């Protein structure tokens, strides 16, 4: 009990303490936050190694156990990163207070068994997200509003769903619930609670806040909440529902698979055409959720294990990508792909981490993203053994989505790190960010590699299999170490050929077209890659509608509410006799009701 409550109380008290420290002691605030976040990480590890706990309000089993240290890790890295990246912000004390509270309530959400406690911590996370987005100033106001309406609104749906679950089981503890989804109430309660999980994780149709938040919020916040913690918690809750609480039927699994596939494809198609790298990464943060939902939607151990592993991997590489993007933005003060280029020599560490994380998200072996996607594919094939055609479509969508992901990251890497510099300067002096900023991304990039190469030995063995509680049977063969060695052997062979060959006799010269050197206006920035996709008949129409917000549940809801509101306003014309007439009509209605 103490081991669970202590980190949560510490985070609350530390947050309050930071608010009390005068703002001019900036260093003290930063240092104190860092210490607290390190403590929370250590506490998370302690919870991970503790014996399973089931004491009413709290429940720590294989599934919730590995989430906790992950939350602590991201919290610590982001706090370290913020020490430099948030240097230009004035209101630093509330920023760190909210970060610490976020870590604390995320841990609480992961370990809570009581649905009321879960709802409180879950809802509070939405609030801290809102507050953290607003740290970035006036221009974030519209985005934070939209984000919190979607997140907070889905939390209200969760209240309804949890209420139904309580009625069905007469219990407030998730561990006591075992609900057969056949009954309509059970089905709706699952969908309502899942809606909360989807909104947090960013699956369709509640995804529209993520790309916009990614664009406007401080990048450390995007890396922390939408990219890592919200994914961890949202998918954790979905997995908890699917594994322990509900007994799902094939129809529900099919819904999950369809949501997953549509999310993968639609979001990656939008990512292809983005001009702003933060928004591009934001759309990928949506697209990848599709894989996790798809994995859980297969309903077989390998698929669910793949979904959970992908969740963990995604948190790692997406956090890495956002923070690396933050490094680029910190140095160049822009997030427009058009204005970037040729940074690979100037920021080598950031280039390398971005490259690794991009390879991981695109599913390039031997990185971690490949392994979890491969598990999800196997889950789908396993599902196919029981017949039906849905699995083929989903498998095709997942693989195609993976290809498009790679395509859009080629665009990203090219536009930021390769190609010519936007300012036309030839100067390529190394100008890397300070250690507070490159250390976190390097740690995450190394994790991407380790989780890929030693997938069986570390993450699957310690995190995923205990979470599932059952043995994961692989139908396909993939020996990570051998494959990696082979890959490196191939690369080495290529290098040997390159060095042995007559590369010294190659003549280097500036690029030219038609005998003329390529000027600044002829620069190929990479932004235009895939732009033609917008011109293909039906796709073009869909893109136009999508950019106008036609598929946005928020915009549609807004239009509906204002339509109804307009009618009501027309009725409120401010004339006293009208109002008196309503009163009398209301009274007549009451008379009819009571005296009939």
């Amino acid at each position, binding site marked *: 009990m103490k081991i669970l409550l202590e980190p949560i109380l510490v985070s609350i008290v530390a947050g309050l303490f930071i608010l009390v420290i005068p703002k001019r002691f900036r260093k003290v605030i930063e240092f104190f936050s860092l210490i607290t976040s390190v403590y929370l990480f250590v506490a998370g590890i302690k919870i991970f190694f503790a014996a399973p706990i089931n004491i009413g309000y709290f429940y720590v089993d294989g599934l919730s156990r590995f989430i906790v240290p992950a939350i602590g890790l991201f919290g610590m890295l982001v706090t370290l990163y913020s020490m430099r990246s948030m240097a230009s912000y004035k209101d630093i004390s509330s920023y760190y207070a909210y970060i610490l509270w976020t870590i604390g309530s995320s841990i609480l959400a992961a370990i809570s068994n009581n649905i009321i406690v879960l709802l409180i911590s879950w809802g509070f996370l939405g609030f801290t997200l809102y507050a953290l987005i607003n740290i970035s100033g006036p221009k974030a106001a519209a985005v934070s509003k939209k984000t919190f309406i979607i997140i907070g609104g889905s939390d209200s749906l969760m209240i309804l769903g949890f209420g139904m679950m309580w009625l069905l089981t007469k219990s407030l503890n998730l561990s006591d619930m075992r609900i057969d989804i056949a009954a309509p109430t059970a089905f709706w309660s699952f969908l309502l609670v899942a809606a909360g999980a989807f909104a947090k994780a960013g699956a369709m149709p509640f995804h529209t806040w993520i790309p916009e938040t990614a664009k406007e919020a401080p990048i450390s916040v995007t890396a922390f909440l939408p990219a890592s913690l919200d994914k961890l918690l949202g998918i954790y809750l979905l997995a908890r529902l699917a594994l322990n609480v509900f007994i799902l039927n094939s129809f529900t699994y099919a819904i999950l698979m369809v949501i997953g596939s549509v999310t993968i494809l639609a979001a990656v198609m939008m990512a292809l055409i983005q001009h702003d790298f933060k928004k591009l990464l934001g759309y990928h943060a949506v697209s990848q959720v599709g894989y996790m939902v798809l994995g859980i939607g297969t309903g077989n151990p390998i698929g669910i294990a793949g979904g959970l592993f992908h969740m963990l991997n995604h948190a790692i590489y997406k956090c890495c990508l956002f923070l690396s993007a933050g490094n680029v933005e910190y140095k160049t003060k822009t997030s427009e792909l058009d204005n970037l280029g040729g940074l690979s020599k100037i920021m080598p560490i950031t280039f390398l981490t971005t490259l690794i994380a991009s390879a991981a998200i695109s599913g390039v072996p031997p990185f971690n993203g490949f392994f979890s996607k491969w598990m999800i594919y196997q889950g789908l094939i396993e599902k196919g053994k029981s017949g039906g055609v849905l699995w083929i479509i989903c498998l095709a969508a997942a693989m195609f989505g993976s290809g498009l992901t790679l395509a859009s990251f080629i665009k990203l890497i090219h536009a930021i790190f390769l190609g010519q510099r936007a300012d036309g300067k030839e100067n390529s002096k190394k100008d890397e960010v300070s250690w507070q900023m490159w250390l976190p991304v390097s740690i995450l990039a190394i994790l991407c590699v380790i989780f890929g190469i030693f997938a069986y030995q570390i993450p699957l063995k310690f995190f995923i299999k205990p979470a599932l509680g059952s043995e994961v049977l692989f139908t396909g063969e993939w020996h990570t170490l051998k494959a990696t060695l082979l890959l490196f052997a191939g690369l080495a062979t290529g290098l040997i050929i390159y060095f042995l060959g007559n590369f010294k006799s190659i003549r280097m010269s500036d690029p030219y077209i038609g005998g003329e050197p390529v000027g600044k206006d002829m620069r190929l920035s990479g932004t235009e890659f895939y732009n033609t996709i917008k011109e293909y008949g039906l796709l073009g129409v869909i893109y136009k509608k999508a950019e106008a917000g036609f598929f946005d549940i928020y915009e549609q809801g807004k239009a509906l509410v204002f339509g109804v509101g307009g009618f*009501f306003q027309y009725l409120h014309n401010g004339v006293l006799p009208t109002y008196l007439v309503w009163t009398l009509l209301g009274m007549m209605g009451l008379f009819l009701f009571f005296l009939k």
Partner: protein
Amino acid sequence: MKAIDIIPLFVIIPLAAAFLTSLAGRFIRRSSEVIIFIASLALLGFSVYARFLLNSAPGRILVYKIGGWVPPFGICMVIDGLSVFMLVTVNLIAFFVAVYSLSYMNQYTDKPKFFTLFSLMVCGMNGVIVTGDLFNLFVFLEIASIASYALVAFGTEAEELEASFKYAIMGSVASAFIFIGIAFLYSFTSTLNMADMARILAYKQNVWVIPFVGVLFLMGFGLKSALVPFHAWLPDAHPSAPAPISAMLSGILIKTLGVYSLIRIFFNIIGSTHGYLTILMFLGVASMLVAVVLALSQWDLKRLLAYHSISQIGYVVLGIGLGTPLGVLGGLFHLFNHSVFKSLLFLNSGSVDYAAGTRDLKETGGLGKLMPVTAKTNLIASMAIAGIPPFNGFFSKAIIIIACLEKGFTGYAICAVIGSILTLASFMKVQKFVFLGEIKDKLKNIKEVPFAMLFSVVCLAIICVLGGLMLLPSLRFFLDDAVAVILRGTSYAGVVLEAASK
């Protein structure tokens, strides 16, 4: 002096304060402020004291017989769990509003007059709550109403006078119907004592008088509590009043005159039949949805808040209309919470008006940097009204939603959720257009409001943050006693008469 003798003080103190402020205020500068501060603090202290007094009272009820006459012959004052719950709510808000007014009302010319009307309003509300006599209730209701008509017009601009006129007309219509209802009941039972009336009604059967009177009361008190379709006066009246009075009107007046009287009469005197509960729930849900949709399209900050008062009263009435222990608990808890956060919101709107000179959402923006305390307290109140944990509004809304599900009203539960989402949306709008966003050029030099105003809003914000703790088992008695009174229904008669006969 016996402990029970504090009961009439709830009427005497504000009545005396009303006279003293207008008398002394004429001659001694600032004396009205001192009087009002002491009076409201004393009232708050006495209501908390009454709460603890009740814990040791037999049957958890205190009856004070005016002039020693035993009911039904004399008028009595009754304090039970529900009354004391309302007393604490009313006097808590009244105290903070009074403190706020000390600075805020400097903008207006005649402070003593304002405090006189303010005290009269408090006197009326306290009277409605403690009285055990139906006609007495009507008298106090009129005192509070008439004071509020005058207060709405306090600014004496054209708009305020028009709003006050509308409010007065509609309020008088409601009072008239309530009065007719009381007259019918009197002719039917030959008594005006509430407990005695309940006793007689319990065995006297009649086919039409009770439902007929029920409709009159539903309309009359429904208008006082601004339930749709009797709500139309509120969006004009509440924004026109000075901000502290808006806080009083939305925070407690509509609840005391409307909801409390409704509960007292329908649950404790007439008896809550299935029909009344159905209508209450229906009116609650209608108010909840219609008003929140209207609120979303408002651009005047106070008007937006006024529509939310209608909507939130809908939650309260829905919860109480369920008639189950959980529903009534949720409804009452929401009543308390709404008093706190809505008065806080109105006081904040007053601060914005005080500092920026406008409350048009299109003209404000970015005030969060210039008025940090107001912005933070407003954020807390917005989260509370939108039902975001861990603030107090979350708990009461969640209880109401779950209570709806428990009784099988899934449709109403869904409506409550939709209302909650739209409330959140509209307060996100307030946050965006008032406290976030870009600062407008002409508002660049505004300052945070004075200490007295900040003191009130900060205290109320702290209650919003910690309000959820009232559900802890050791603090539940405050709510539980009130719930018990409502669920006891018409057996209220026996309890009061027995306590009075001692």
